[in-house]
């Protein structure tokens, strides 16, 4: 008997939705083996990372708060990936969004008015979108790969952040710490549920997911994005402009990353600090794939990744697992997902060896 893979006529729905689940299960298994080999309590650590946060209801708000920026960024990225637009510099757009919003916060210092926070959020949105517009323009005008330029600009954004908090934006009363002054009440994203970390940004993310879902599956624009990604030739014949799609998806993904940046900056940190960027922009790439580039899937994928973040904190105290293990776990999830995708587009058949020889 031979094991033979043959292409399916249409992707299996069971495999399509089962693949992320299988990928997480395989990651847990591989994680157990790897951590045990490295001298940690393997099974215990994996349980703490993936299961324990779900068993403790008091941690659920934390998961939602952690998932919020990941889902917001990944929602935008997923739209771009569908159109074959590879914005991998979301981390930079996230930082620039936070910088732009903080700029408004510092400029309106002392003004306690209702419009301050909305202007900060809009500035974040515009800042992120503007940062993403650079690679978009370079791709449209000069055919320069957006992969490399968007990523390079992440490093530039990071240095810009360091410069601002060490130099012009440093808190004059902050004992020389490289950080801005704390945001005022009017500059802080309000809390949603007393006694938890839950804030209004979480609802904003939810709204973004709903809008993205509606646009992608129910409007011509969404259809255009999907066609440009799947069949560029057909798109061209159909009169869809690839350049317009590139610009639009870059602006949307950059804008959402920027919005996520200023929300996180205001709600979680309450100021701009060098500790603010923690690679959510890169993790969101995994979230987008885990969610099968579908807004609702991204929501679920973001919750799964957020669970692993919260769980990694538990494992750090309980099993002395280093923080770096989180990155490894996340990368394994993506590896396994890409691997099991083989069974989404192919099916396994057992073929009698005689037939094999005859053919």
């Amino acid at each position, binding site marked *: 008997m031979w094991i033979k893979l043959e292409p399916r006529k249409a992707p299996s729905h069971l495999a399509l939705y089962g693949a992320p689940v299988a990928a997480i299960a395989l990651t847990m298994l591989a994680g157990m083996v790897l951590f045990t080999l490295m001298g940690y309590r393997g099974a215990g650590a994996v349980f703490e990372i993936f299961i324990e946060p779900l068993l403790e209801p008091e941690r659920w708000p934390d998961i939602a708060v952690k998932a919020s920026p990941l889902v917001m960024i990944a929602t935008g990225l997923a739209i771009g990936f569908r159109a074959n637009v590879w914005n991998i510099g979301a981390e930079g757009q996230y930082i620039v969004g936070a910088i732009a919003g903080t700029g408004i916060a510092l400029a309106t210092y002392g003004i306690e008015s209702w419009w301050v926070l909305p202007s900060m959020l809009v500035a974040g949105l515009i800042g992120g979108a503007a940062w993403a517009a650079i690679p978009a323009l370079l791709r449209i005008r000069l055919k320069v790969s957006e992969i490399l330029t968007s990523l*390079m600009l992440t490093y530039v954004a990071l240095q810009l952040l360091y*410069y601002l908090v060490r130099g012009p934006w440093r808190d004059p009363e902050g004992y020389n710490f490289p950080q801005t002054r704390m945001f005022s009440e009017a500059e802080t994203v309000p809390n949603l549920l007393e006694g938890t970390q839950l804030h209004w940004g979480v609802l904003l993310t939810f709204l973004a997911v709903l809008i993205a879902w509606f646009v992608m599956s129910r409007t011509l624009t969404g259809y255009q994005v999907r066609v440009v990604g799947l069949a560029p030739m057909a798109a061209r014949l159909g009169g869809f402009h690839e350049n317009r799609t590139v610009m639009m998806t870059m602006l949307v993904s950059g804008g959402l990353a920027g919005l996520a940046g200023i929300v996180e900056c205001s709600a979680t940190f309450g100021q701009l600090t060098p500790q603010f960027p923690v690679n959510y922009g890169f993790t969101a790439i995994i979230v987008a794939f885990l969610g099968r580039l579908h807004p609702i899937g991204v929501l679920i994928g973001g919750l799964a990744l957020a669970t692993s973040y919260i769980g990694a904190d538990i494992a750090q105290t309980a099993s002395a697992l280093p923080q770096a293990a*989180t*990155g490894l776990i996340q990368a394994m999830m993506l590896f396994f997902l890409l*691997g099991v995708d083989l069974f989404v587009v192919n099916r396994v058949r057992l073929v009698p060896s005689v037939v094999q020889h005859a053919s």
Partner: protein
Amino acid sequence: MSLEIAISIVMTLVIAATPILLAGLGELVVEKSGVLNLGVEGMMLVGAVAGFITASLTGFTPAGYAAAAFAGLCASLLFGVLALTIGANQVATGLALTIFGTGLSSLAGAGFVGTTIARLPALFPQSIAGHPILRLAFGYDVIVYLSIALTLAAAWFLNHTRSGLILRCVGESDASAHAIGYPVTAIRYLAVAFGGALAGLAGAYYSLAVTPMWADRITAGRGWIALALVVFSSWRPWRLLLGAYIFGAVMTLELYSKAAGFALLPPEMLAMLPYLATVVALAVIAMRPSRGRLDAPRCLGKTFRAGA
């Protein structure tokens, strides 16, 4: 500026250029075979940590470089299995490899942060390697000369050998190469493995030579600069060498202005330079008039499935 300072500036430039040349050369061969492996940064980090740990435990730096090349090769095979055998999206797989390498290197290197090891000595005897002027040409370790020799070898291999022609054929038209009877996937595996080994070596150059101590994310995005250099070079080894040395100069400028307390620009702006320069270089190269004559391999990044 005295001659002595000028010479040490040039030497710093060469050392800064060497790892991006090595990594870029590996990726150039990979891309010539039609594969886009965005995992260069990840493979470099895996090589950097494997090299450092080996050198640290054995006390023998050459063993560190060997381990680094091997580790980079193993990491690249992970990419090979997913992107070449399974046929997963190359962009996504490469990104995953970078995230994986970053996580693995900081996990494995956690116990070594801040420890140091001995650099490789200069290849040539002290009488010329330590000479105030001759050291400009003879004062480097073996890896620097290796990187230049490999550039020569890669240029010769790609343009003047039958195997090189087959490799390019696989990258330009995988279907034709397959039809003639060449094992497309196997050839791509070889290229990917070569790229992995060189990326590993390049990573180790950071942890064993540029700053001979372990720090998290020691390669600081240089793997991405190497990727950009391949585009900048229009997939030609000698231009890659030139590009790597230009970038070495930009990075050295950053280093020396910092040391000299150069007040014209704040240090953060200087640190941006290599990355900004990369963006500008990519834009400038895209504007050149001879576009399209010898550009990207046709099958770059496309998944190949042998007659399913």
